[in-house]
């Protein structure tokens, strides 16, 4: 058995190297398909991160009446933190709100003077609430509109931003769904293109396959080298796809940073390069093996 495996591998390498033009053409098509897949991967990374950044920027604020006791406000904070939809609650006391206000208007003499003349702090304490999902703000808002809180709550910003939040939640949802469908479609097309290329390569070897069968070679012995060649196509194409995508990533990374400063595409690419290479090679190998195996079936019936 070891001898058979050795011979299959040897002939697989021969199949790859001696049909250099055919191998180059097959690898080229596979590289293109794998670049499409890598593109989907990068696109998915960018949209996921952009959406995460946007999601993180959405919050609702609940403003309390100026006479609301602080321990009451903190009790509301604690109860909010107990909700499964709530990711984070930030408490801004009346004093902190005043400090922030002053800091924001330190160059505005009139406002600074007005605050001093007022003699007391006119600002309310507030809670900034972030949800795991923008679609959950409505639930949180309903919770806050509860009658028992009405005596201390002044206003909830959700109702002012509701249209924007709803729209954004809808956009995020649509982008994610469309992205998944597009990725599945492109993956299918890329897979079919590779399958067809390998099918043509094996079609050109159909006579050779017939000769091998007539000489007494078993299906394993005939098919094996083509499967090995399929694996080699996958390895070479997987590596090339990452190498060829590298300059493109370096080129577009600064532009991505301008739009979304939180996202560093180049750093992500380099820190995950070993996984990307393994994924690309793995996918290429699966495509090569499955296509070769499938495409040979009819020619073995001799």
């Amino acid at each position: 058995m070891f001898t058979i495996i050795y011979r299959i591998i040897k002939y697989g390498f021969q199949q790859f190297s001696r049909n250099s033009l055919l191998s180059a053409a097959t690898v080229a098509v596979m590289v293109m398909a794998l670049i499409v897949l890598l593109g989907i991967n990068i696109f998915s990374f960018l949209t996921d991160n952009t959406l995460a950044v946007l999601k993180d920027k959405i919050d609702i604020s609940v403003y309390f009446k100026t006479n609301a006791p602080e321990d009451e406000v903190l009790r509301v904070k604690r109860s909010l933190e107990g909700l499964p939809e709530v990711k984070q609650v930030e408490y801004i006391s009346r004093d902190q709100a005043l400090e922030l206000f002053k800091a924001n208007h330190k160059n505005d003499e009139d406002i600074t003077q007005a605050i001093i003349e007022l003699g007391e702090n006119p600002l309310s304490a507030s809670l900034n609430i972030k949800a795991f999902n923008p679609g959950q703000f409505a639930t949180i808002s309903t919770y806050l509109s509860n009658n028992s809180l009405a005596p201390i709550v002044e206003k909830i910003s959700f109702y002012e931003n509701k249209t924007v939040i709803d729209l954004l939640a809808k956009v995020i949802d649509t982008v994610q769904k469309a992205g998944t469908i597009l990725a599945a479609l492109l993956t299918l097309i890329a897979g079919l293109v590779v399958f067809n290329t390998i099918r043509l390569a094996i079609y050109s070897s159909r006579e050779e396959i017939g000769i091998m069968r007539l000489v007494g070679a078993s299906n394993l012995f005939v098919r094996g080298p083509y499967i090995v060649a399929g694996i080699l196509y996958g390895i070479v194409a997987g590596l090339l796809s990452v190498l060829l995508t590298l300059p493109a990533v370096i080129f577009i990374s600064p532009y991505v940073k301008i739009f979304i400063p939180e996202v560093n595409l180049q750093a992500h690419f380099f820190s995950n390069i070993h996984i990307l290479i393994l994924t690309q090679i793995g996918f290429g190998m699966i495509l090569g093996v499955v296509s070769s195996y499938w495409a040979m079936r009819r020619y073995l019936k001799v």
Partner: protein
Amino acid sequence: MIAFQNVSKIYNGNVDGNGHSSALMEVTFQIQPKEFVSLVGRSGAGKSTILNLLTGELKPSKGRVIFGAYEVNKLSYQELPHLRRHIGVIFQDFRLLPNRNSYENIAFALEACGYNQADIDELVPQALEMVGLKDKAYNFPHELSGGEKQRVAIARAMIHRPEVIMADEPTGNLDPFNKWEIIKLLGKINELGTTVILATHDKEIVNNLGRRVITLDSGRIVLDEEKGKFVLV
């Protein structure tokens, strides 16, 4: 022993008006070990069909094809390689593996049979020497002449010492000099104890051999003579 028992092969076509064309009709014959048999007849008489039925490339529409312990018509695709390791095949168009040199083409038959490397290294040079191609061991098929290609094909067919060599018009693409070289080689192989079945429509070869001749016409055996001559039916 090889035996064809009432074998018919009918293709779907439009020859007899019923949508069928018969390549073989109720053919029955036997070939004993170590015989040299020529199958003769016009093109389309059924010579190649007989050879293809024997290798299992074709299945008979009716009847039984026996090769030793095998009932060929009942073998599955997975079982056929075992049968074929007892047969050496030679074709008019050589059918060498284009991306392998002479040595590798011959060695392939042994590798397919599971021979170990030491045996291969010993047997292939012997076979190359026997067919006079020792100096062309590392030439690829496109670097060989027609006669040389056919000699590589003969070496490949006989290397694993099969019980039967089947040659389908092996001289069809060769000049007269190479033609007789090939026939001489087949004679030599037969003398060493291998059954040879030669399908040909070359009158000169058949008459010179003076061996058993089975003559076919329109899929039927019309003559079967121990020391036959080429007869146009």
